[in-house]
């Protein structure tokens, strides 16, 4: 079926990208969406979708037409009040966004991150060696994928040891609420509510340790003229976006390597492939699957007119497996050049933490290559369903120490 958008017809799809069935295994539906056309209409939610690499990139690049200030979830902030005060980074447009982004990018430079590497690597080696030395099966999610970022990331920010477990339900809530008000949304709000108070407390100027990144962000924000409320909001962005995403990236990498033993073999032979292996995981099994934009004026994309005030859903993960862009997109290949994927977005809103995520992923997978001789699934991985993220609830593994 098609509808007359204006100049061109747009294919109408009935599928629900937030249903359990879709979230469990989205890949066939991704294919259907890519083949439906460069732009399609999702009837159930009354919005446009893009799933090919080219159109997703175009929407990401044109931040003046496809704005973020009206929300990057399904809700249009021009029509509905958001559940929390909008982020100064994620849910903002230039010039406000430019100023806020600069406060952060100025602090989290590649040089600063390079300085973290040695410490991160030591802790990854210690953790992986300890887990690999244990007997029996382990949970790749709780014992490894959650354990590593929950140790290094809050230390880097300057958060106290107590209460760190709140970071996971809070992140899960934020990403679930970009979707419709389904059961995942409601449950995440319930669980996240308890975590929210702790998160807000940690975001207050003066709360994080004085030598951590959190205090540096507060100081730089104050210098740029932001009041205390906005200083807290800038740090909140890190605590929202910096943990679940990396946890899922590492968890998905473990799953991919366990399911593709020859790839783990390549990594074992050459641990310097660790960074490429993490990159390929973000392409092949993207932790952030989708984001929305809103047209702030009448637009045209691939010859299809999209009226002002339309929500446009970008399927980043589908773009990352678009055969128009990649050879053998459905094979996990750590030796391919995965750069150019949109797993971290692209353009002015490209993930600010992407270099930190890469560093964590690289250190973890280097430790895995050095300390683990054999990596095997010891049961069925359990998917954690989230309206935006793709990751695991549990991953039974059998590790043999190297």
């Amino acid at each position, binding site marked *: 079926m098609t509808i007359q958008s204006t100049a061109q017809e747009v294919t109408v799809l009935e599928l629900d990208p937030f249903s359990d069935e879709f979230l469990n295994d989205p890949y066939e539906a991704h294919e259907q969406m890519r083949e439906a056309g460069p732009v399609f209409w999702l009837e159930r939610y009354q919005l446009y979708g893009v799933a090919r690499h080219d159109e997703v990139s175009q929407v990401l690049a044109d931040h003046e037409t496809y704005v973020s200030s009206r929300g990057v979830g399904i809700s249009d902030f021009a029509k509905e009040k958001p559940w929390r005060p909008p982020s100064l980074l994620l849910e903002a447009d230039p010039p406000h966004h430019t100023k806020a982004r600069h406060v952060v990018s100025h602090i989290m*430079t590649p040089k600063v991150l390079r300085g973290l590497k040695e410490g991160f690597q030591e802790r990854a080696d210690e953790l992986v060696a300890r887990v690999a030395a244990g007997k029996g099966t382990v949970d790749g999610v709780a014992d490894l994928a959650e354990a590593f970022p929950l140790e290094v990331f809050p230390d880097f920010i300057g958060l106290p040891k107590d209460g760190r477990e709140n970071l996971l339900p809070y992140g899960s809530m934020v990403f679930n609420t970009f979707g419709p008000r389904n059961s995942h949304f409601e449950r995440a709000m319930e669980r996240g509510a308890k975590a929210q108070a702790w998160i807000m407390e940690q975001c207050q100027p003066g709360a994080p340790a004085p030598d951590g990144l959190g205090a540096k962000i507060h100081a730089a924000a104050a210098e740029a003229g932001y009041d205390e409320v906005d200083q807290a909001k800038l740090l909140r962005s890190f605590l929202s976006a910096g943990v679940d995403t990396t946890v899922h990236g590492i968890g998905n990498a473990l799953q991919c390597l366990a399911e593709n033993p020859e790839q783990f073999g390549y990594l074992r032979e050459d641990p310097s492939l660790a960074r490429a292996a993490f990159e390929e995981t973000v392409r092949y099994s993207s932790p952030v699957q989708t984001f929305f934009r809103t047209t702030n004026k009448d637009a045209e994309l691939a010859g299809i007119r999209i009226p002002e005030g339309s929500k446009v859903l970008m399927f980043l993960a589908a773009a990352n497996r678009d055969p128009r862009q990649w050879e053998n997109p459905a094979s996990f290949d750590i030796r391919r050049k995965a*750069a150019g994927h949109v797993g971290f977005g692209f353009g002015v809103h490209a993930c600010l933490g992407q270099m930190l995520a*890469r560093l964590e992923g690289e250190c973890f997978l280097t430790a895995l290559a050095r300390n683990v001789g054999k990596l095997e699934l010891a049961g069925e991985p359990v998917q954690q369903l989230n309206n935006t993220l793709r990751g695991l609830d549990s991953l039974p593994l059998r590790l043999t120490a190297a």
Partner: protein
Amino acid sequence: MPKITYILPDGLETVLDAEPGTSVMRTAVSHGVPGIVAECGGNAMCATCHVYVETEAAEGLPAVSDVEDEMLDCTASERCANSRLSCQLHVSEDITVRLPETQV
């Protein structure tokens, strides 16, 4: 079509035709020129597409933004007066760039 000349660290030269408006980085990556890592995909966030512009009188080039300036302070090889991030160099005229010894 503007021509981009890449001088590799060993002195070898590669000359490519560039689509007007595409970046020196994108052109290199899509043709498999070694030595440009471009990890972040062109967002001026990783400083791994560093080049030295060797064209004399390169007036047609876009100015260095604040963000690019900060990133250039983070390059793995030494920053020189002609250092640029090739993802920020969208070409309309012929240009010659030299690649640094290392990007990471």
